[in-house]
């Protein structure tokens, strides 16, 4: 009987490992954040065509999309991503800490390794009934603002930092006035949405709130989904430039021998074709000529980067979003 039991056990384990093993189909695995799905769905065929022309190889690029911090945790835990394409430097920094990505990844590609950018803007109801023109109007009493959770989501954090940076740049602005300003902003939030898309649904479909803080790139999706006449876009006088860093996962490309392919894949994001694809997905291209070509889509706006205003994500994150940071302080004052 014992022998029977042992063979059963062996069978059980074999089954377990078979399920766990993921077939390695060659090519690249790009692990990315949630809303980049559309961008890379368009980009991958363009790159594959290019690669076939220059290297004569037919390869496959597999995509994985989910919340960005979940994604990098998966990579740190062993998901074999050749490249990561993220929406916040703090996520790539985590992989640097784990020794998977080079410390100087931001200098391995142009523009801080961010092939395109976006910014945080306001979406208001048709006719702008609450006359919202700038951040100062959003914090006024009686205005309801919708944004994703500032502590738990990437776009929530960008919204928070955009308001903070705006307040710092005002006459007499300092850390204390900025915290007070952001506190008033958060007081105007009736809820914190679970994520960017949930915030959009709450504002557009459930008709809650007077103003939605969102990525510029999301506004076009909202127009497609709900119709252009339903809302207006308001550009504040100052906002945050959101960067989307890309990086090669050194340990994986060395192991799988995919360094050349991974490098080419990310390089091509800065090519004319790659940049045009960004513009077509409503992400601001780095190429100034293209930015001019799509000027109607991307009105000029004054922005600051997280590096300029906060000394980088590695400083901004612990100061504002870790437990005990300014976000928590605002709620503990009450």
């Amino acid at each position: 009987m014992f022998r029977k039991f042992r063979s059963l056990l062996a069978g059980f384990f074999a089954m377990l490992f078979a399920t766990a093993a993921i077939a390695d189909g060659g090519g690249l695995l790009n692990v990315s954040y949630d809303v980049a799905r559309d961008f890379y769905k368009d980009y991958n065929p363009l790159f594959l065509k290019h690669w076939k022309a220059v290297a004569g190889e037919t390869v496959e690029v597999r995509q994985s999309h989910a919340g960005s911090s979940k994604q990098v945790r998966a990579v740190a835990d062993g998901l074999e991503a050749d490249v990561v394409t993220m929406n916040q430097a703090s996520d790539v920094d985590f992989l640097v800490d784990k020794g998977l990505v080079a410390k100087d990844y931001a200098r391995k590609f142009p523009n801080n390794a961010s092939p395109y950018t976006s910014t945080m803007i306001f979406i208001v109801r048709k006719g702008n009934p609450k006359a919202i023109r700038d951040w100062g109007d959003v914090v006024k009493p009686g205005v309801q603002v919708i944004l994703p959770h500032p502590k738990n989501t990437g776009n929530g954090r960008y919204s928070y930092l955009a308001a903070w940076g705006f307040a710092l740049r005002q006459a007499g602005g300092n850390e204390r006035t900025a915290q007070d300003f952001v506190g008033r902003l958060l007081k105007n939030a009736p809820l914190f949405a679970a994520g960017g898309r949930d915030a959009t649904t709450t504002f557009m479909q459930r008709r809650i709130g007077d103003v939605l803080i969102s990525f510029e790139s999301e506004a076009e999706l909202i127009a497609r989904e709900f119709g252009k006449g339903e809302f207006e876009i308001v550009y504040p006088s100052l906002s945050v430039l959101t960067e989307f860093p890309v990086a090669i996962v050194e340990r994986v490309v060395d192991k799988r021998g995919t360094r050349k392919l991974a490098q080419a894949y990310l390089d091509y994001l800065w090519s004319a074709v790659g940049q045009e694809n960004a513009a077509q997905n409503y992400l601001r291209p780095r190429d100034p000529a293209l930015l001019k070509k799509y000027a109607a889509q991307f009105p000029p706006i004054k922005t600051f980067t997280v590096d300029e205003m906060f000394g980088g994500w590695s400083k901004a994150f612990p100061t504002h979003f870790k437990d005990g940071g300014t976000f928590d302080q605002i709620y503990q004052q009450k």
Partner: protein
Amino acid sequence: MFVTAAYRRQVLPGFGLSLGCTLVYLSLLILLPLSGLAFKASNLTLGEFWAIASGERAMASYRVTFGASVLAATINAVFGLIVAWVLVRYSFPGKRAIDALVDLPFALPTAVAGITLATLYAGNGWIGKHLEPWGIKVAFTPVGIVVALTFIGLPFVVRTLQPVIEDIEPEVEEAAASLGASRLQTFTRVLLPGIFPALLTGFTLAFSRSIGEYGSVIFIAGNMPLISEITPLLIISKLEQYDVIGATALAVVMLLISFVLLLSVNALQWWAANRHSGHGGRGAGRGA
């Protein structure tokens, strides 16, 4: 030789094999992850652990999570009993469809449930717009959390009660009536004692399911610190900061509270089953 004696009394052979299987299976699926959790949490000193576990927002989140779970499970115990009773005792057109409907919360992805409920109960939703004039706000308040958890928990109560109610012969009610019991007496003195252990099991299952629920709740809760934050959200928040150990500490607290609560419900069940051992007892209540 005790094992052989026990083994010989069984009709089906294979006690050793099945026990071995049980132990391996439970170890792999439950004990291994849980001991990993405890191991991770042991990186903290007792003081650090206590500081995380007893923070202001953590305490508020336990109140929200466990309070809403108890409320939702209680609502389900009452209405689930009615649903189960109707489905077993009466026959009416569309009964099969309604019976199938009960399982829907099992199958539906919880995020879908959360988004749908939030849309229905928002100020301009089909249900919300009738509640708003009365000053009742459901979506994006703690009430919304109770609504989501009630939805999630319903099948647990109904499916636990159905077989037990089926086992009660209608003659029992007739006998009670013929012996002069009023309707209320028939229910409380004759039927309820038989159903109670199963009802408690259903309550416990719905309650435990609710404590861990994340997907549906975050879409309807509003997630305001100190007001409508559930503990699983705080755990996610820690993970977003790559603070795995802090997340583990909160998870361990939830686990401990849940374990103590489940243990006391099981003790209550055991007591109830023994008191009315004539009415099914452990078998009917699916045991401990």
